[in-house]
């Protein structure tokens, strides 16, 4: 829709539900990619501790943005995204989800414009958060400050696991993507080879010429099989792997939230302690600042409790989410592996059959 730089793809979102909060059984709305981003960001903000399902990447390459394959990949990923939210016992209750699934386009546009900037965390920010934490750590080593990062073994274990997992997965995904390309390349070269052999076949009108022509034709047929399998591989194996990587990145974002909450908790605790010192000072000197200081102190304590509560919630949720995540990924990858193996077997069998079918004719030519 739209023109030139303004052009964008819109997606039809069809919701079927029997939940009472929703109006009616079935609703169809039109949404664009940035609407999905809005939903993701709102959920991320509201449900700290929960691993929000990942979105497919924005595409920066202009001409690729409208290729059929890219659009199909994105559509599939967005479909998975919304359905994961809808099947998560907490996320599905979100008001934002309801707006996303039901609101008319104007309401949606308005909601989207309201949110620009404030809540969005760019990837750079995540890195910055960790850098801050790390600089604090080095300050501690130098004896300057108290540590502001969690140092429990459980936390360390999870954090290291997630970070290393991302590296391993990214490598596997990189090769999987290349493998898709290799299938296409093999298909192309086989096709060219087939064409050349067919031409060679025209040089002779005898059995040899026919044999060449048949081989060339068969090579072209097999080339098509390879292209098909390349597509299947992309959609059913590489994409799930990519999705896995995104999921891990989403967890990293949650870990960053946790680190932020922990830092806030620690800082507040610091502040409260100083405030206590001040309070005692005022009490001793019977200063007139005492009343106000007591008020402030109470507010800080309340805030401190709230902050701790939030932090504990994040920790609790994360622990639950990890279990869910591991199970989900085992089943997602299991399916992806199955599709991969099935596809490869199908391709190889197809190739074997195709070549074998030439043999009887070839025998006839030889005699």
């Amino acid at each position, binding site marked *: 829709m739209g023109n030139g730089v303004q052009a964008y793809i819109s997606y039809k979102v069809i919701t079927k539900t029997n939940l009472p909060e929703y109006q009616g059984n079935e609703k169809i709305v039109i949404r664009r990619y940035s609407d999905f981003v809005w939903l993701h960001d709102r959920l991320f903000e509201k449900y700290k501790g929960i691993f929000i399902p990942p979105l497919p990447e924005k595409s920066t390459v202009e001409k690729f943005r409208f290729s059929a394959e890219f659009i199909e990949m994105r559509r599939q990923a967005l479909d998975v995204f919304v359905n994961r939210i809808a099947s998560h016992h907490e996320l599905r209750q979100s008001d934002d989800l309801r707006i996303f699934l039901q609101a008319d386009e104007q309401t949606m546009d308005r909601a989207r414009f309201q949110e620009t900037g404030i809540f969005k965390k760019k990837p750079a920010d995540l890195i910055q958060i960790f850098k801050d934490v790390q600089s604090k750590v080095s300050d501690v080593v130098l004896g300057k400050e108290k540590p502001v990062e969690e140092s429990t073994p459980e936390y360390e274990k999870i954090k290291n696991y997630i970070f290393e997992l991302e590296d391993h997965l990214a490598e596997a995904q990189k090769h999987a993507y290349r493998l898709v390309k290799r299938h296409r390349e093999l298909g192309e070269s086989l096709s060219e080879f087939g064409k050349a052999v067919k031409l060679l076949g*025209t040089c002779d009108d005898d059995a*040899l010429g026919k044999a060449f022509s048949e081989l060339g034709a068969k090579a072209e047929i097999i080339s098509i099989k390879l292209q098909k399998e390349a597509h299947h591989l992309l959609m059913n194996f590489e994409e799930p792997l990519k999705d896995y990587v995104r999921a891990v990145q989403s967890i990293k974002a949650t870990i960053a939230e946790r680190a932020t909450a922990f830092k806030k908790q620690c800082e507040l605790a610091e502040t409260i302690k100083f405030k206590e010192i001040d309070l005692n000072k005022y009490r001793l000197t019977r200063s007139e600042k005492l009343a106000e200081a007591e008020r402030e102190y109470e507010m800080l304590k309340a805030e401190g409790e709230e902050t701790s509560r939030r932090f504990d919630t994040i920790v609790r949720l994360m622990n639950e989410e990890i279990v869910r995540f591991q199970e989900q990924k085992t089943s997602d990858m*299991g*399916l992806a592996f199955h599709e991969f193996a099935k596809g*490869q077997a199908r391709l*190889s069998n197809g190739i*074997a059959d195709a*070549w074998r079918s030439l043999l009887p004719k070839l025998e006839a030519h030889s005699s």
Partner: protein
Amino acid sequence: MMGYENQESHLYASKEEMESLVLDDDSPTGTAQPFSDPLSSSSSLPFAEIPTDQSQTPNSSFNSILEPPSYAEAIFRSFDADHSSPQLNGAHDHSIASPSSPPSSDDFLTITVSDPQKEQELSNSLVPGGTAYVTYLITTRTNLPEFDGTEFSVRRRFRDVVTLSDRLAESYRGFFIPLRPDKSVVESQVMQKQEFLEQRRAALEKYLRRLAAHPVIRRSEELRMFLEANGKLPLVRTTDVASRMLDGAVQLPKQIFGETAGGMVDANEVAQPAKGGRDLLRIFRELKQSVSNDWGGVKPPVVEEDKELVEKKQKLHDFEQQLSNVSQQAEALVKAQQDIGETMGQMGLAFVKLTKFETERAVYDSQRTRAADMKNVATASVKASRLYRELNAQTVKHLDKLHEYLGVMLAVNNAFSDRSSALLTVQTLLSELSSLNSRIEKLEAAASKIFGGDRSRIRKIEELKETHRVTEDAKSSAVREYERIKENNKNELERFEKERHDDFLGMLRGFIVNQAGYAEKMANVWKTVAEETSGYAKHGS
């Protein structure tokens, strides 16, 4: 293929990870690395002989979990042994479909080239120190009667091979003689390089085996002397023959009369093609003749009659062009097969690492399950990668036939140009005769007008008549030569057509069986994994 080598070492670098995998299938290992074939006319073609013993990365723990020397390697060796000759060693390994050959006779001529050694040329008084050159050990086994022995060896240098090739070209005009390996500008540094020596050794071996496979040339005296005669190669290069030492001012008759002790030089020598530098005048004449042929002035009495031949030549030319095209696409195909195998292997290794990681860090059972699934996929990918590598090694061997025939086409072209130059010689002599005749006629007419005769004219006429007689003999000889070459062409063409038919059908069969066979193996590998993971298909999204 450097990229491939680097990838290989990367592939085997994390061997320790592979050790924890149990590879229970008998997937054979491929250890081939292609060399470029120096016989190729375009030096960039990667097809070639695949050396059977290739030193791999030295990680012994890897070798210990690999299977013993594979079936595929055994195929390599037997293929190498009887690769070049469809008529040698009746034992063919038909499972890899080497060219289907007619039932071979019992005689054999097996040649091996080995053991390059540097030798010093003995210094002569002019050049102090002398130059170094390389000799190769040529070992022959045969039961052909022409040879004195059944098993013998000689040492030859590359220059000797050039001599052999030149002599064969002279003696066997009209035949499709296999082309010898290229000379290269050999600097003394290059000569020491192991790789160069190995390439040359392999090229020489290929060349000699091709000669031995040719039904006529294998029985030639030149080849026999090359293979058997000890010491210095007794083949003389015709350009050294004293009679050729005449400079460009000589006339054709003088060439015939020559300065040799034996008096008149054999008219047959005239029938040989003019060699550069020595027979300048003759070259001039033949050039003039060919120009006048082309410009269609006087129609030469001996016309290249064969419209059939012209058609045939055109067809062969078309075939050659298409063959070259196929050869290029085949090269690209081989590269693509190699690439997909490599990537499959790299992905497999990445999954191996992931599996290890998950296993080590597993907290939940779901992780352990996933690690197990992943291991299956990783193992299968690595197996598939090996299969691709083997498939490719075999593909290269089969498609090498294409490349071999490009060389044969060059030999065919040479044989046809032998014929053309023989025809040109005949035509030259014919017009020489015709011009002699007209000069004689003119002189006779002039002389007859003078009563009593004109002494000087009559003497001249006699000289001319003598020249005419000699030239007539030369012409007959040249015609015989031309007919001989035509006959050779014809026989060779028949042989060529038959061999081409058989060889290519064999190649196609081999290629197809190879592709189908490996595809089936791969299908089996993946079928297992698909079955093992079929449980997940039930709750697919």
